[in-house]
């Protein structure tokens, strides 16, 4: 292959062959990301509520879960779910294992985002709502959550970027996402540089706009906090 010009010649010549194949994989990447995002958001909210609860039977297990997940690699967790569960007789398809694994992993990070966001809403808001006769649930649902979510938007954006990148790990549990397809394509063609550069561009096409969005939301949140103070 030799020189850099040779690299680009092959890159452009093979683009029409590689791109459709890899785009099929990228679609699966986005499905894995979307599926685990939904799991992480719902489970994360429940974990955040459990973590803050007065009931020790809820707050302690939630705390242990969050610390365990945040203290260990996502790759190890995926292996536990895919290879570990298979040993116990529960063989999950790679795609399901990847979505479940990344969702369970993300829930711990999302829970911390919710906790920080809820803590940032001044307690006076809650006290005012209660004294106006709202139930604790109504206060949570209509007063605290809407204000907290605004503060949490940049962090959720950053989490989405992290998640998109983490979906590449699904390739090692044989989920047919873009890295999995890329590795198979490299085996066939030996054009590793061209293929991985192309895959990299696909990730960047999502992660860079998200990162710009996160930056804008961050500046807006800082301004909002400044105006409130």
């Amino acid at each position, binding site marked *: 292959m030799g020189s850099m010009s040779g690299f680009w010649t092959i890159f452009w010549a093979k683009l029409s062959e590689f791109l459709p194949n890899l785009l099929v994989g990228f679609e699966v990447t986005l499905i894995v990301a979307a599926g685990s995002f939904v799991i992480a958001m719902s489970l994360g909210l429940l974990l955040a509520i459990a973590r803050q609860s007065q009931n020790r039977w809820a707050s302690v297990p939630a705390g242990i879960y969050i610390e365990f997940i945040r203290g260990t690699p996502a790759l*190890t967790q995926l*292996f536990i779910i895919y*290879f570990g569960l298979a040993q116990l007789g529960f063989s999950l398809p790679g795609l399901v294992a990847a979505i479940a694994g990344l969702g369970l992993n993300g829930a711990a990070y999302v829970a911390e985002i919710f906790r920080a966001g809820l803590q940032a809403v001044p307690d006076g808001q809650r006290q005012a709502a209660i004294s106006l006769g709202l139930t604790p649930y109504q206060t949570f649902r209509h007063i605290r959550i809407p204000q907290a979510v605004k503060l949490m938007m940049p962090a959720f954006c950053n989490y989405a970027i992290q998640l998109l990148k983490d979906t590449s790990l699904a390739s090692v549990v044989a989920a047919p996402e873009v890295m999995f397809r890329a590795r198979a394509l490299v085996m066939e063609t030996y054009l590793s540089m061209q293929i991985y550069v192309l895959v990299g561009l696909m990730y*960047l096409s999502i992660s860079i706009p998200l990162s710009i969005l996160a930056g804008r939301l961050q500046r807006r949140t800082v301004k909002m906090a400044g105006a409130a103070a």
Partner: protein
Amino acid sequence: MTDLLARFASWTPELITAAGQTLYLTLAAFAGAAVLAIPICAMKMSKSASMRGFATSYIEVARGLPVLVILFIIYFGLPDVIPSFRWNSMSCAILGFALQGSALLAEIYRAGINAVERGEKEASVALGLTPLQALVHVTGPQAFRIGLPPMGNYLVGLLKDTSIASIIAAPELMLRAKDLSSSSFMPMPVYIYVSLFYLILSLPLSQLTRMLENKRVRQ
């Protein structure tokens, strides 16, 4: 049960050695990233628009790519394009993590420097310090203190991310765990056990980071 305990005991020495390799990979990549981040941060804060543009592109690309893609480009891609490039998997992993980490640390440095009040620098320059002296003796140390908690968070994240190096067969905890899992046919106990190793390495670091964060908030 005693059989399982005996297994754990027999895996322990190998996993301790591998934990050392994980630590080495983490610290080497951190050191590389910390040094590489200095010129990137300087370019990002430079007056020249082209320098800033270069730094911004570098940061966005390095942060936007999965580290697995970076590792594959270095380990599988580079030798194809540059045939004389023959680094082993460990060196490739250190390089890959350092390249990505330098983008994150450059942003942490910049945030730290920007957070130090302008007046500090103006006062130092007014007292006759050169801008470089002001950075090294006045704003730098304050920025370092501000940047310490996010640097700690990055280090914890890096420690866990080094597990990805096992995919290019760099010798560290996760690779050793994979070997043990396939030789023993017991993935569940092996991966749970290796999780404990990661926890032992990461929990003290994340606790320390949290303490530093709380201290800063109180200040």
